[in-house]
């Protein structure tokens, strides 16, 4: 009888785990279905092409305008700006930790950087308002510094831990034999890093960057607090911008239920989802290539 009890317990747990697995899948599927379903309701009123290419976002005007191009461009320049700052800084730090830092320094740096990822985004946004934005304003002689550049700097800070951690793993995983071969023919540490280690770690570094991009595109609270939220077409990094995420967060609370405007926010979310999914898939693709390459 004891044996039978053990056997049935085994079966019970198999079904419990199966249920949890499917529950998660169902949740994700449900979210996706809800996004798409509500987006369709929106596209009954507004043509998808007009939505994507429209130059004006003003859903509460006399004639509501649902052009999300300014939002897409805002998200793009803030993300792009963040990456211009975070990529060289991140790869440089990763190379330093993996190749140059003493074991003791490494033991301090790595957890510190990982802790950076634990700072709530609202705190980063707060720092943006009280520190970075006044700094930009006084340096660039503007009335205020709540603009795309401010958002980019803060997002760079937020993407750095991801980029550094993944890139450091990639650089660290380059086989020692490659490095020995390079040192063996008289290369310096820098020559080895530049010509052998970084090319060998490239897939992992690209993955790190893509994951950083995914993080930056999806970030909401920080950009909402720090970029000024003017839904106009920005012409430079010093213009105030309203990103897709901030638009959803700001307007969702005030929009009447099941109006075109309400559905429009779902449509924005769908476009956002496609963008982050794209960045993450690209990142995953390069991570897998990187793994394959090192399995040899």
């Amino acid at each position, binding site marked *: 009888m004891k044996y039978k009890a053990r056997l049935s317990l085994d079966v019970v747990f198999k079904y419990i785990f199966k249920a949890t697995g499917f529950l998660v899948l169902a949740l994700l599927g449900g979210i996706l279905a809800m996004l798409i379903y509500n987006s369709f309701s929106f596209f009954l009123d507004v043509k998808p092409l007009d939505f994507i290419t429209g130059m004006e976002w003003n859903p509460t005007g006399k004639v509501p305008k649902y052009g999300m191009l300014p939002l897409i461009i805002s998200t793009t320049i803030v993300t792009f700006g963040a990456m211009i700052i975070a990529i060289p800084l991140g790869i440089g730090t990763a190379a330093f930790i993996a190749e140059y830092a*003493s*074991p003791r320094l490494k033991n301090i740096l790595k957890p510190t950087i990982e802790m950076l990822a634990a700072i709530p985004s609202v705190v980063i946004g707060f720092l943006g308002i009280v520190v970075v934005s006044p700094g930009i304003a006084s340096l660039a002689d503007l009335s205020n510094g709540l603009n795309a550049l401010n958002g980019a700097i803060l997002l760079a800070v937020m993407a750095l831990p991801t980029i550094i951690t993944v890139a450091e793993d990639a650089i660290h995983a380059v*086989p020692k*034999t*490659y*490095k*020995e*071969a*390079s*040192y*063996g*023919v*008289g*290369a*310096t540490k820098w*020559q080895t890093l530049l*010509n*052998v280690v970084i*090319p*060998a770690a490239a897939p992992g570094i690209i993955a790190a960057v893509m994951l950083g991009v995914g993080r930056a595109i999806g970030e909401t609270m920080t950009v909402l607090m720090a970029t000024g939220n003017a839904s106009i077409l920005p012409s430079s990094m010093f213009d105030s911008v309203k990103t897709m995420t901030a638009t959803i967060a700001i307007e969702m609370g005030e929009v009447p239920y099941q109006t075109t405007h309400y559905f429009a926010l779902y449509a924005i979310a769908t476009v956002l989802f496609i963008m982050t999914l794209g960045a993450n898939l690209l990142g995953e693709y390069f991570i897998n290539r990187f793994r394959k390459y090192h399995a*040899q």
Partner: protein
Amino acid sequence: MKTKLFAENLNISFGAKQVLNNINVNFAENQITALIGPSGCGKSTLLRSFNRMHDLSPDAKIDGRLQLEELDLYSKTVPVTEIRKRIGMVFQKANPFPKSIYENIAYGLKINNLPHDKAVIEKALREAFLWEEVKNDLKMPATRLSGGQQQRLCIARAVALRPEVILMDEPCSALDPVSTLKIEDLITHLKEKYTIVIVTHNMQQAQRIADKTVFMYLGEVKEEGPTAQLFRNPVNEMTANYINGHFG
């Protein structure tokens, strides 16, 4: 015979672990010297101390004199890159760069600011007996070559820099017998121009190619001498046991 490379009163430890114990050994110019001994006896550690590969291990402590002719290999005034250019190395597992065959040879030349035109590359590949096999595929990734070809490419890469000494750390241990014989043939030719020190676990290999053999055990040189003599009439009992396969 002129001594090209030597170690005097050499002690090496990693952390608390003493790996080499008062080693005195010399290597004659244009000769092949084989280092033999059971695993963990310090052969590779000794080999790697000559081109300062231990610089990469922060806990390595090296004590004693190592010289390439008059040059003190651990002198503060000599850049380590210069030493590695003059003392080339071939590793146990063929380790071509993940680049093309051509780039694999050109890399070392480029970083040392030496000419790296096609004629130089061809000469190095010919010297490594590889040219005929790869002359039409110079742009091919080096990793697509067979194991033996990869190892000959690594030898070509070392030879391209015109070193004075080539250190070889069990270069055939991962190869089949045919590739091994090819490499042995190559090594025998190379001694006309270079001084060669080779670590090997293969007794037959040492007898086939080495002019002199050094037997090491537990971090000490137990016996050394002309290869034929050492294998025929070993003086030390441990040497006799080892070469007859009683331990190791």
